[in-house]
């Protein structure tokens, strides 16, 4: 059976399970003993099949260069994204993406549903926080030169994530279907349409046709809650995989304490 200890954080001595004294109770006897064993057995059973404990141990206990607090920005973005995903799922349970009912469903949620306004606020301000954090994270990796060899691809994936994050914000803005969101979106889509080559096609795709119509809202909703989040999930996966493979950078002013002898 794999050793459970390798999953565990270092436990203070006072909290450690006392080892049984030699010669006493070689087999679990009381219900408590059995309960203690059950967890280990379940984890062992699962790991015997998934064989993940090695990867988990590697991911958790691999060494990373000492760094400063700006290195938490990447994770903060991911955390904000997760928060958006969770609050978004809750909003989706009450939202009706039809031109006739969208506004009413949001109004009800805001004014009548339990904690509805709070939930909307979390999603709305969460998006602002996420956008700010993405820009800060990008600035950090830029000024620290983290986009250089061998992390070029991670930067490129990052720019894709930046675009996707902005796309989330743009498509989400229409959904409450109030005056602001409606008119701002019309203007935004028209601006898109003036772009070179793909501009007009992009506008048609967004509107679901040449005119802003009844299906536009469902189109935006599908993009906002399926297409783009799926893409973000996949891209974040690739981003993090590369971060783990290559390791996070060291702040450029830190030098090794002893010179590499090679």
């Amino acid at each position: 059976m794999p050793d459970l200890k390798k999953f565990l954080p270092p436990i203070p001595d006072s909290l450690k399970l006392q080892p049984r004294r030699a010669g006493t109770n070689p087999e679990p006897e009381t219900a408590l003993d059995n309960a203690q064993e059950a967890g280990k057995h379940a984890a062992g059973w699962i790991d015997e099949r998934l064989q993940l404990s090695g990867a988990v141990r590697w991911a958790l206990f691999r060494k990373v260069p000492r760094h400063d607090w700006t290195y938490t920005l990447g994770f903060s973005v991911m955390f904000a994204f997760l928060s958006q995903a969770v609050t978004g799922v809750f909003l989706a349970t009450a939202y009706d993406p039809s031109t006739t009912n969208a506004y009413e469903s949001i109004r009800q949620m805001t004014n009548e549903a339990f904690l509805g306004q709070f939930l909307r606020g979390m999603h709305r301000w969460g998006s602002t926080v996420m956008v700010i954090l993405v820009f800060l994270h990008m600035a950090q990796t830029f000024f620290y030169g983290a986009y250089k060899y061998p992390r070029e691809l991670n930067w490129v994936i990052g720019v894709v994530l930046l675009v996707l994050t902005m796309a989330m914000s743009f498509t989400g803005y229409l959904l409450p279907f109030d005056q602001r969101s409606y008119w701002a979106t019309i203007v935004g889509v028209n601006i898109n349409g003036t772009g070179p080559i793909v501009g007009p096609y992009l506008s048609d795709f967004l509107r679901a046709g040449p005119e802003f119509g009844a299906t536009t809202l469902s189109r935006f909703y599908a993009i906002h809650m399926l297409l783009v989040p799926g893409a973000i999930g996949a891209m974040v996966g690739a981003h993090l995989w590369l971060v783990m493979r290559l390791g996070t950078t060291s702040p450029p002013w830190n030098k090794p304490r002893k010179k590499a002898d090679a």
Partner: protein
Amino acid sequence: MNRAEKEEYLREYGQLKAEGEPFFPYSVAKDSIIAVVVMAIIITMSIVLGAELGPKADPTSTTYVPRPEWYFFFLFELLRIIKPPELVPLATIGVPTIGLILLFLLPFYDRGAERHPLRRPVATTAGIMVIFAMGYLTYMGAAAGSPNEIEMKAPSTLTGVALVEWEKGKTVVGQSGCLACHKIGENGNDGPGPQLTHVASKLPAQAIAQTLRNPTSPMPSFKNLEEQSPEKFRAMVSFLGQLN
């Protein structure tokens, strides 16, 4: 970076890594603290700022504020300050597209081995300037006047009553939300409706009044306005009728 520089980097990085800390708990602890902070900020903003909901979307409406999220302000502002029509596509898509391509390709044209920001003066200066430019544009976008305002000077030939009528018409046209679909002078959106900067040279005032009463969809009709406050309607027509 040439081969020797790459190897040197990897060697030094390996050394720094070996002298580093285990991801758990070193990074995990910091990340967890930050996660709590982020959550606290979002919750506080939600409680303090709430979630507003304006009036229901009305495609025929005449008063609206086509304001995007504030972090798109810099794009909108770019659009506002680049005025000549032949440069507009450049502003709307050109500058953002070029900026994005430069961003994508950054690691492929900036390949120097140096990573310290103070020893990369060009990159660091460029980065700071971009931040300032975006900050400035965002600020300008936020401070920009109401989108229902027309900034146009009356023709100098107008005086007295005619001038008052012209100014009144300008205000009414602005308030009526025409700028949502029409460009008038330097304000308003170019489309879906035609530019009105020089309507009077294409349509006589009579025809303009007729269009206001019986417009083609999606433009709203101003028949009600004519019935309820004929003087406003007249002012509108007289303003538009003098846009040569």
